[in-house]
């Protein structure tokens, strides 16, 4: 047998390990250069240029001012992939958001491992797959897709939802969220919450694409784009107290460049996990916007609600995170295919 490790070598290794870990702890108390970079200016953001943080690079890459895009694109039709392609085209195309070399994180709703996408508890797999394809076509260096389910393991939820298969076919990567990667993050604009532990990959991504599925929720009334962002934080029970303001506080720090509300199949009751096809309504609709508040406001109307019926949309509008007045928006409606 080979010579066993000497005690000295072992202690040295142990010392390095513990020392490294200790350094890590210390480093963690130092200001993180990324986190401390000027977080979102408090100025209400114009819907057309909502950047995702960190914001430094965004101004230099803002779209040419000569072109103006609709605030909201609503695409209707039977083929989800086409809705994504043409909806994006109407919004200026994916290159408006994803620059060559960008690291993109896509956040669908994969909340449970219980049912296939037909049950409308999880985002439509083809919508997510097409978004991945569009990002890669725009030159993204890396596209990772992630969520942290509350029921069942993430691996299984990824598979059962059908999202893993579509993402992999499109060339993207499913990422299992790791518990050590949540970092304490200030919410400088937060009104009720001033700090949260947020997933590092989401904070560090160049582009965040938010792909919620439109569904019923007993407390928030509806799970839409702002509610979907809850999946990137560790302490979710915390949000349930004063959920409206707290979701808005989170959305003030985690800002998707693009929100795509999947209303291809909507879960009308017994959300968020569903389980009965009787609760599902096929609406074949996709809502795309750079403004999460605007996208959610429109989606609310699909349930017969007004934006002001949802506490988080009121809070988001009040904080200047986006607009909820559907009458004041430029909405482009597309009907695609048969």
């Amino acid at each position, binding site marked *: 047998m080979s010579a066993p490790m000497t005690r000295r070598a072992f202690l040295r290794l142990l010392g390095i390990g513990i020392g490294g870990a200790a350094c890590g702890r210390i480093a963690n108390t130092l200001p993180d250069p990324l986190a401390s970079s000027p977080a979102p200016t408090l100025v209400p953001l114009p819907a057309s240029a909502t950047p995702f943080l960190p914001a430094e690079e965004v101004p230099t890459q803002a779209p040419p001012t000569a072109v103006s895009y609709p605030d909201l694109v609503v695409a209707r039709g039977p083929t989800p992939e086409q809705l994504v392609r043409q909806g994006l085209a109407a919004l200026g195309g994916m290159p408006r958001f994803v620059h060559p070399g960008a690291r993109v994180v896509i956040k669908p709703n994969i909340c449970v491992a219980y049912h296939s996408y037909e049950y409308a508890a999880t985002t439509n797999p083809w919508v997510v797959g097409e978004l991945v394809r569009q990002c890669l076509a725009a030159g993204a260096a890396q596209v990772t897709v992630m969520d942290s389910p509350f029921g069942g393991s993430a691996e299984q939820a990824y598979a059962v939802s059908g999202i893993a298969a579509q993402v992999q076919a499109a060339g993207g990567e499913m990422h299992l969220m790791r518990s050590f990667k949540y970092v304490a993050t200030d919410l400088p604009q937060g009104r009720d919450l001033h700090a949260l532990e947020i997933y590092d990959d989401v904070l560090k991504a160049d582009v965040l694409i938010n792909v919620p599925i439109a569904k019923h929720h007993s*407390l928030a009334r509806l799970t839409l784009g702002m509610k979907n962002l809850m999946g990137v934080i560790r302490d979710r029970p915390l949000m349930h107290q004063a959920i409206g303001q707290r979701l808005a506080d989170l959305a003030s720090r985690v800002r998707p460049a693009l929100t795509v509300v999947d209303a291809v199949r909507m879960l009308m009751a017994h959300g968020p996990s569903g389980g009965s096809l009787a609760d599902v309504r096929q609406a074949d609709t996709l809502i795309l916007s750079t403004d999460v508040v605007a996208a959610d406001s429109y989606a609310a109307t699909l349930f017969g609600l007004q934006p002001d019926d949802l506490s988080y949309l009121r809070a988001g509008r009040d904080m200047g995170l986006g607009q909820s007045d559907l009458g004041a928006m430029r909405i482009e409606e597309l009907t695609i295919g048969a």
Partner: protein
Amino acid sequence: MEHEAGRRVDPRWYTRARWVVQLLALAAYLAAFILARRGPYLSAAANLFLRLDPLAALAQALSGREFVAGMLLSLLVIGLALGLGRAWCGWLCPLGTILDVFSPSRRRVRALEAAEPWRRVKILLVVLILASALLGSLSLMVLDPLTLLTRSLASSVWPALDRFVLALETGLYRVPLLAPLVGRTDLLLRPAVFPAEPLPSRVALGFGVLLASVIGLNWLAERFWCRYVCPLGGLLALLSRLAIVKRTVAPGCNACGACTHVCPTATIRADRQFSSDPAECTMCLECLAACLRQGAVFSAGTAIAPRMAYDPNRREVLAALGGGLAGVALLRSQTRTPAASAHRVQPPGARENNLIGKCLRCGECTRTCPTGAIHPAISEAGLEGLWTPVLVPRLGYCDYSCTACGEICPVGAIPPLALEQKRLTVIGVAYIDKDRCIAWADQRDCIVCEEMCPVAEKAILLERVEVTRHDGSTVSVQQPRVVRERCIGCGICEYKCPLSGEAAIRVWTPNIALPL
């Protein structure tokens, strides 16, 4: 030194070969243990070692009144014992190998002269186990080396290792240059080796101390556990007396005594002319390697090994038999207060399946449960059901999309249910503590239990009511109620209830007074 040494195989190769086999077997055991984590696996491979265990096969067949086909694998070990004695103990047993790895230097260990008679304990334990199995109790299977090791790893070593690795990862991830490396390493480790999120264990410390004690006894006498305690070793000892290949002493022996110093079970004794008891010999071949004159020989023969002074006599065997029967009867007549088992929530299908008499207490289900819901029972199942599986919903819930425990159970004590069937299997019923529930007691919206309920029609209903607060104002609150007919007792509501400490909704053992 004799020049003949050049002609025959250097005997040290025998012990080297044994080490290789031992480490490979331990690696295979650990690989099976790791595979038991839910994922694409063959459950037959994941519980291979438990199915090789003839003591488990015999006791479970006696107690469960049925033979599990997979346990036929144990015939291999029985055949091995009839051919080569306790070669299982010396070459294959993962606990035996761990004991060899954590062995003190031999020179420092004195044979426990006074303990010689205690070698019979392991034989008597076999009798006790089989006697109580006759009455349908497998409580003493906690002493089987494979259940002991698997349970200790599942409930203690692995969770501790996991926390250690996580602490290291969390620390190193904050070091700017190391972060990508930590991320990449973690991708290899989770969820293949460790769960994505660290899982809880109620008995990590206790089982850790237990395993450490079994190893620590090595410092009293090498392979103390295998010599005196191990009931699987006891069963194999009985078979080994019939073994074909045994160690004998050849005429070349000059009584140098080298073999007595290397024998791990100290069965080679000068006062017996350096012969050994096949029931104690683990076929480790250390004596062969140590012998300078080819005095130790392993040869085939059909003679039955002679009785030893420490072998139990008929009276002791009868006493153990009676003790086993009486022990079970006593345990059963000691009625526990019904409250003690109010929260005995068993894995899906196990409630209808009498775990006391079917469960080996191996802890494979604890290991495989992806949500950390299954734990060895401490008080929930009484003394007779000690370390049978219970769900502890506050620590983990039964995942609505999972059937892992039924797939892994080596003896079908937790039945292998199809997913649709499992979703309908009632393991408990949730009741709300309205005095503590946020909606009921504090008159504030919460709804977490309803939100989490996986049942399609929701076993928890929310009712919007106007309630009057202490200051006379009225508020509108959504109050949860459990629809008992829909609740399957998965416990996700109890797990996610945002109250600190005890949840305001708890899963109880199904109430037999009410129809399900």
